[in-house]
């Protein structure tokens, strides 16, 4: 197959930003946590964009994937730490479990919720998220509402030094790597038949069907991909980094809303949008908490509203219009 490199030019600005973030975080003392938080938001925005941005379905239950990813890592570390000699492999087992659990819930949601449209879809997803949380708490699965704590297991396998390294450095680096992969998948989908199909579905699902598009298939592809990436982010940014998980902390719709704000701020269905949105959102939230502790949310909401009014199609949506026809066009997607 002939690979058209020019299709991937829009990755250049994205990767340039990620590299800059990484270097700043790595070499400027005291900024690593901020940069890690920004990478978390950007990675989530990009992962979520694959489904919502491209299909137009608003998935309020997206946090389910992040939560199950966290549980995947928790289970991996808790139950496989007893097998001496697995070493670093338990982290990868955790990732596999994250993918497995998110696949199960994606298929469950695809079977139930993806048949619905619009608000009904959004509500069904919330229902599944709440249902899972109460199932875990009520049936006392995986520790029930007491959750899982596995710092001890982690230190038993790796020793305290390495465990600290893993949770404070490598978990964050992994989020960067997931963000890089998510960006690539975004471009790959947008430039392939999948992207065309998803755009058609977003704009007019019935017309898409009579054009020969198997809408269920393409929606499921996007849903699964988006869910997997969310689960990987959860496994690393929450599961490995925090070394504990409580259902009341992870099945929280608030995180889905953050994803929505990030993607809408930056530009729905664009590649750079979730990145720019993640940076704006993460930075303003962080700085406002420092400058105006206690008042940050009061200031934060008006700022978000102003940005949405100034850039109704998101920052990148507007930039895209501006650069149309110029040489920059092929770098902005």
């Amino acid at each position, binding site marked *: 197959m002939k690979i058209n490199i020019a299709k991937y030019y829009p990755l250049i600005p994205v990767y340039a930003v990620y590299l800059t973030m990484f270097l700043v975080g790595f070499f400027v003392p005291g900024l690593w946590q901020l940069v890690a938080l920004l990478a978390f938001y950007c990675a989530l925005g990009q992962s979520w964009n694959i489904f919502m941005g491209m299909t137009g379905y608003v998935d309020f239950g997206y946090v389910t994937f992040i939560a199950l990813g966290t549980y995947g890592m928790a289970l991996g570390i808790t139950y496989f730490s007893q097998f001496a000699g697995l070493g670093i492999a338990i982290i990868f087992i955790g990732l596999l479990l994250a993918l497995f659990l998110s696949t199960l819930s994606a298929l469950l949601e695809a079977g139930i919720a993806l048949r619905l449209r619009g608000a009904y879809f959004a509500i069904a997803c919330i229902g599944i998220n709440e249902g899972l949380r109460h199932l875990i708490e009520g049936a006392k699965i995986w520790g029930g509402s007491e959750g899982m704590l596995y710092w001890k297991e982690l230190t038993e396998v790796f020793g305290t030094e390495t465990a600290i390294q893993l949770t404070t450095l490598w978990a964050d680096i992994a989020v960067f790597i997931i963000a890089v992969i998510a960006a690539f998948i975004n471009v790959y989908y947008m430039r392939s*038949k999948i992207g*065309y*199909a998803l755009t058609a579905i977003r704009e007019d699902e019935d017309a898409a*069907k009579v*054009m*020969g*598009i198997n809408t269920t298939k393409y929606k499921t592809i996007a849903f699964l991909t988006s869910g997997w990436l969310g689960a990987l982010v959860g496994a690393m940014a929450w599961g490995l980094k925090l070394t504990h998980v409580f259902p009341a902390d992870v099945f929280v719709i608030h995180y889905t809303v953050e994803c929505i704000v990030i993607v809408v701020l930056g530009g729905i*269905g664009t590649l750079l949008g979730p990145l720019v949105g993640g940076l704006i959102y993460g930075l303003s939230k962080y700085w406002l908490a420092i400058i105006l502790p206690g008042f940050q949310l009061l200031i934060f909401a008006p700022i978000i509203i102003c940005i949405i009014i100034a850039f109704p199609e998101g920052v990148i949506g507007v930039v895209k219009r501006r650069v149309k026809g110029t040489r920059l066009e092929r770098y902005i997607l």
Partner: protein
Amino acid sequence: MALLRLENITKRFGGLVAVNDVSLEIEAGESIGIVGPNGSGKTTLYNVISGVYPPEHGRIVFEGKDITNLPAHRRAPMGIGRTFQIPRPFSSASVRENVAVGAMFGTLSGKVSVDECSEIAEHYIELVGLQAHKDKESGTLTPVEKKLMEIARALAMKPKLLLMDEAMAGMHPRDIDDMVRFLKKIKEDEDITIVSMVEHIMRAVAGFAERVMVMYRGAKLIDAPTTKALSDPRVIDVYLGRPTGEGEDAEG
């Protein structure tokens, strides 16, 4: 063998019988007009043929294969293309991308790359005369341009049967004549059977269709060669209206 055969199709929406026991045979190479007043079931019939919803009764046979229970996305690649009464462009996508979607998913081969589909799209965009607009967002086109784009999009699917829904509504009479000429030409060039559905523009039906099926209140009123069908008293009665003074309900 007929290209498309509808056998006693009935489609209900609750208590409303939108299509009532309609049978129709379309031979390859025909140009057929389906006419009828508003609400007579024409668009529903199209939706049943293209698979938007299944009929309650009856069978749809395309090229000898029973497609009654086939989902819409599997019928399109078999060669059933359509346009919509109110154009339904994929608004945020460019004209070229819209037409490329037709080439990408509307054919059976399915092996064509995105770039090749883009080239195929260019061909059909030129055919309908939209080359100046090919990079425009399709949502920004004028209504007539949108209709032309839908035709290009349907043609890119290489259909055997093209179902056109009110393609000429709202057009200037001169444009209608152009469109009729264009349809006749692509029918020959692309070897397509065209079913065109119209509500009010007799000029288009008379100029284009060899045969006309008239629908009224969901049922088939008549299926005959165009001139005969349009001069049938029953058709005049329900559809065109009688000249004043001829009938009792003429003033109503």
